[in-house]
């Protein structure tokens, strides 16, 4: 993957105009305060056992963490709660110093625009080209077409898939889809990046490169939380790790509850 992507300083300006990015939500310059704070979060689906139990976790601005745990441990559910795709059954969530439960739908949509999500199943739209899939967050934020045209080839080049810009997802390999999904998640320089098994469909070498991409993004100021079932893979990096086992956060070192 060539060079270092510097991101798009203009994107947030569009987001400000369209949605109140940053300052409007009180997320600019909140050093020392948690970007994400989960307090005693639990999640239970109708008639089933509790999937998440008493989860408390805080992410500071600029944090880079792995969330490990076996398949079915509740990692995706936890990411869904943080990305406002699901509501916790109990406990409180604070996001960018706001309580999403008290916000209007429009304000919650505005919060979502500050979050980049890499979905485990990619969720690319087959009818759209790679370019238009990646452009979605920018268009939602109200970015201009010229800005989008200038910006996306650079990002795809950074991820090594610039030659796939015009094709549609069905012809892409799983690894290429993964990179397109990552490009879409980071194209608008989110304040918070949540990645659900982002290395699950690529070889070991590419997985390392993708984590380097997240690290570069983190160096630009994005807080990163990567969920992975591969504990050994996460341990290869010098980043804090939290472990989820049977719906409970445990100390990765001690193996007991945190």
């Amino acid at each position, binding site marked *: 993957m060539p060079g270092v992507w510097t991101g798009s300083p203009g994107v947030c300006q569009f987001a400000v105009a369209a949605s109140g990015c940053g300052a409007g939500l009180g997320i600019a310059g909140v050093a020392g305060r948690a970007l994400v704070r989960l307090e005693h979060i639990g999640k239970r689906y109708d008639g089933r056992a509790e999937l998440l139990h008493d989860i408390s976790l805080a992410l500071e601005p600029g944090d880079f963490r792995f969330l490990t745990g076996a398949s079915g441990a509740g990692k995706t559910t936890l990411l869904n709660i943080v990305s406002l*795709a699901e509501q916790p059954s109990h406990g409180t969530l604070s996001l960018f110093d706001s309580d999403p439960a008290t916000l209007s739908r429009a304000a919650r949509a505005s*919060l*979502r625009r500050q979050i980049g999500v890499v979905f485990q199943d990619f969720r690319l*739209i087959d009818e759209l080209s790679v370019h238009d899939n990646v452009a*979605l967050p920018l268009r*939602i934020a109200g970015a201009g077409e010229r800005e989008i045209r200038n910006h996306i080839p650079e990002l795809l080049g950074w991820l090594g898939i610039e030659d796939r810009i015009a094709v549609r997802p069905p012809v892409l390999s799983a690894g290429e889809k993964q990179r397109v999904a990552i490009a879409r998640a980071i194209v608008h320089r989110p304040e918070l990046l949540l990645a659900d098994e982002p290395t699950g469909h690529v070889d070991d070498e590419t997985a390392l490169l993708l984590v380097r991409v997240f690290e570069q993004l983190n160096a630009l100021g994005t807080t990163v939380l990567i969920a992975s079932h591969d504990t050994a893979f996460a341990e290869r990096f010098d980043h804090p790790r939290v472990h989820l086992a049977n719906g409970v956060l445990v100390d990765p070192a001690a193996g007991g509850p945190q």
Partner: protein
Amino acid sequence: MTIRWLHRPRLDISSGRDTKILLLCGVPALMAYVAAMMGIGLLGLSDMLGEWNRLQAGTLTLQLPADTSAARTEMALAVLRQTPGIAGARLLEPAETKRLLEPWLGPSVPIDRLPVPHLVDLRVDPDAAIDFTALRQKLTSVAPGAELEERRAGDDGRRADLLRAVRVLGLGLWLVAMLGAMSLVLAIWSHLARHQLVIELLHRLGADDGDIAARFQTQALLLGLLGGAGAAVAGALTVIWPGYSGLLPFADWRVWAVVVGVALVPGLIAMAAARVMVLRRLAHMP
């Protein structure tokens, strides 16, 4: 003041390859065409019924025996003119009577030498309630042998048939319109069901509910307009087709109002249905 739709984000998701939705919209388009034809037919039949009513209610004939004197004829005319509800009474000229009888008797028959009854043409207010029994008694008292013809009795059956046909056609039109609307709503529902993941994705990427709904309602509007336009063009071609013996002339503005309505209404129904369905789906997402 900001005009919201000017600043809507472009959430273009092409449906150019989505042939299923085009096929699904073909059914409501066909129904729209049938509804248009039924609507035009209904207008034509209603016009016929109205004209029938007008003619039947407004036309009566009085026959006076051939030997009725001029004085008695004048008295009969006076009785008619004094009767409320009779707008006019005119004694036909012998030449007019001859013209009426000529088709039956032929031109060579000397009608003026035959005992042909005098005919009085009456114009009746269709809304007036005339006591014809009393009127007949008065007329026979001043002109014995006078016969007041009333064609209503013989024609009421045909009029009732026509009225029944109008009602059946109206009911059929209502059913076709309802089925067309339901099939259109079903087509939109099916389309949205296949795009459930897209709706959810746009929601998770932070798109506002209104923007997501706008993206799908615009597409539904275009699909509905496409189907409606197809039905309208087919309807217009049917109306102006040289061999078409329609109930209404194609220059009648109402024909074109039906055609334009058929072109527009499916689009509006599809747009409203898409908006309601998308917003309802989004309401289930936090």
